[in-house]
């Protein structure tokens, strides 16, 4: 396509948007709502995934001992565990260290109510890091057979819970976005159809003069594409502004869960979100206008 024709096509595409202002605005608003929800769900899902990965890469298995167990026995259990192929690292957490860590993580200003007592006196443990989380089940089975081991905790439960929530949010997101997608396609289709009706005379002249299908149709496809891109740009800007504020609020509000709530930065989220949202917006615009043009503009 020549530059002059391309320019004409772009100009007509933009003009079409202004010819049907109300419909164009409604279309942009719907696409924006669709992309906004997508952006929010996307941000939530990638952050959940990030937290799952963080949880999985943290302590996988904690081993507690029988009451009154000797230090030598604890050492020998540690040696047995270290020999296992699944284990990448093992760390002994004394009762004092466990209590210090608990105080820091969960008690905050209420720490003084316990005085010098250590409620976790019998809670010395081994924290076991695995080479691969999928090997956890076989290791846990083995650990339960060791004499002197009272309890084996799998921290992957938290990760599993997050994964389940993640899937649920994903399904809800797909459902809502699907409905909005359909509404957007319908609206964009109507907007383009009105544009075709308004420009009926011009299209008839174009056909008689010898314009190709491509030249006749492309302004409408450009119109759809532009509406889609504008509809994607607005929510992206909004989410960019809101993201840090929401993260800050959640971190402050749920400070007790700060070790679990590790959010991605807005830049990390937007590296994937921008292309995804732009493709989504442009895709809705293009598909909506393409369907209408095919249906109403037999050149």
């Amino acid at each position: 396509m020549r530059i002059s024709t391309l320019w004409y096509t772009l100009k007509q595409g933009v003009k079409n948007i202004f010819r049907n202002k109300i419909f164009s605005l409604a279309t942009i608003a719907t696409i924006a709502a669709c992309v906004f929800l997508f952006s929010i769900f996307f941000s939530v899902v990638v952050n959940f995934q990030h937290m799952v990965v963080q949880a999985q890469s943290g302590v996988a298995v904690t081993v507690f001992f029988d009451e009154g167990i000797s230090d030598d026995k604890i050492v020998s259990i540690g040696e047995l565990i270290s020999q296992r192929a699944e284990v990448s690292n093992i760390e002994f957490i004394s009762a004092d260290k466990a209590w210090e860590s608990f105080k820091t993580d969960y008690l905050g200003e209420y720490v003084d109510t316990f005085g010098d007592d250590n409620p976790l006196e019998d809670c010395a443990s081994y924290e076991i890091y695995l080479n691969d989380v999928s090997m956890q089940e076989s290791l846990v089975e083995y650990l339960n057979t060791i004499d002197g081991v009272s309890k084996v905790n799998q921290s992957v439960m938290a990760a599993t819970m997050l994964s389940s929530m993640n899937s649920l949010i994903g399904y809800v997101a797909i459902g809502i976005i699907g409905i909005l997608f359909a509404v957007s396609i319908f609206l964009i289709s109507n907007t383009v159809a009105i544009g075709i009706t308004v420009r009926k005379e011009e299209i008839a002249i174009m056909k008689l003069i010898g314009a190709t299908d491509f030249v006749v149709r492309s302004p409408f496809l450009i119109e759809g594409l532009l509406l889609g891109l504008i509809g994607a740009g607005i929510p992206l800007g909004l989410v960019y502004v809101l993201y840090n504020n929401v993260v800050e609020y959640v971190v402050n509000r749920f400070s007790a869960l700060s070790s679990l709530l590790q959010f991605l930065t807005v830049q990390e989220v937007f590296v994937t979100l921008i292309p995804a949202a732009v493709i989504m917006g442009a895709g809705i615009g293009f598909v909506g206008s393409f369907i209408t043009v095919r249906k109403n503009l037999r050149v």
Partner: protein
Amino acid sequence: MIILDKVSKAYNKGAPALNDVSLHIEKGEFVFIVGDSGAGKSTLIRLLLREEIPTSGKVFVNNTDLSKLKHRKIPIFRRGVGVVFQDFRLLKDRNVYENVAFAQLIVQKPAKEIRRNVPAMLSMVGLAEKYKARPKELSGGEQQRVALARALVNRPPILLCDEPTGNLDPKNSWEIMKLLEEINRRGTTVVVVTHNSEIVNAMQKRVITMRRGVIVSDEKKGGYIYED
């Protein structure tokens, strides 16, 4: 240049709009097609523009068999046939220059060529001075001149005119006809569908008279034949 070979065209199950019409128009001819409403003139124009295909028979324009023309080839074919209408069909939101340039733009002529061709064509139709005017600022005759410039700017070998003087007063009608004669003199084949008996009788060109879908008369230097 234009050949109709035993062409019939029927819409739905009604009487045929054209019935077994055969016709030859040579390169460089100036031809009037006359007849009353329902004679089949508009159908003939639509067939020549490949807006319709005949029910039977063959239509050749610029050596192209229109019944065999593939859909994607229609735009290229139409670039070889200029067309003007009674109602001018100008783009009201664009000025004279843009209306004429539009015809070149959409067939993807280079910008440089458009800048050269459009003023030349406007000069030919006598509207060089009014290139910035919008259609509503022009008289009927001037609007038809713009339509002519638009039809001719891509230099088609054939010009089809469907009632070009239908909306014009006698003075403007004559000016348009003189312009068409000049265009024909420069080598373009001109086919004019008209009701204007005064012009047809005065110009002494080939006149094809149609009545109820058939050609009833074809005279080299004819006049307008009125229906009894």
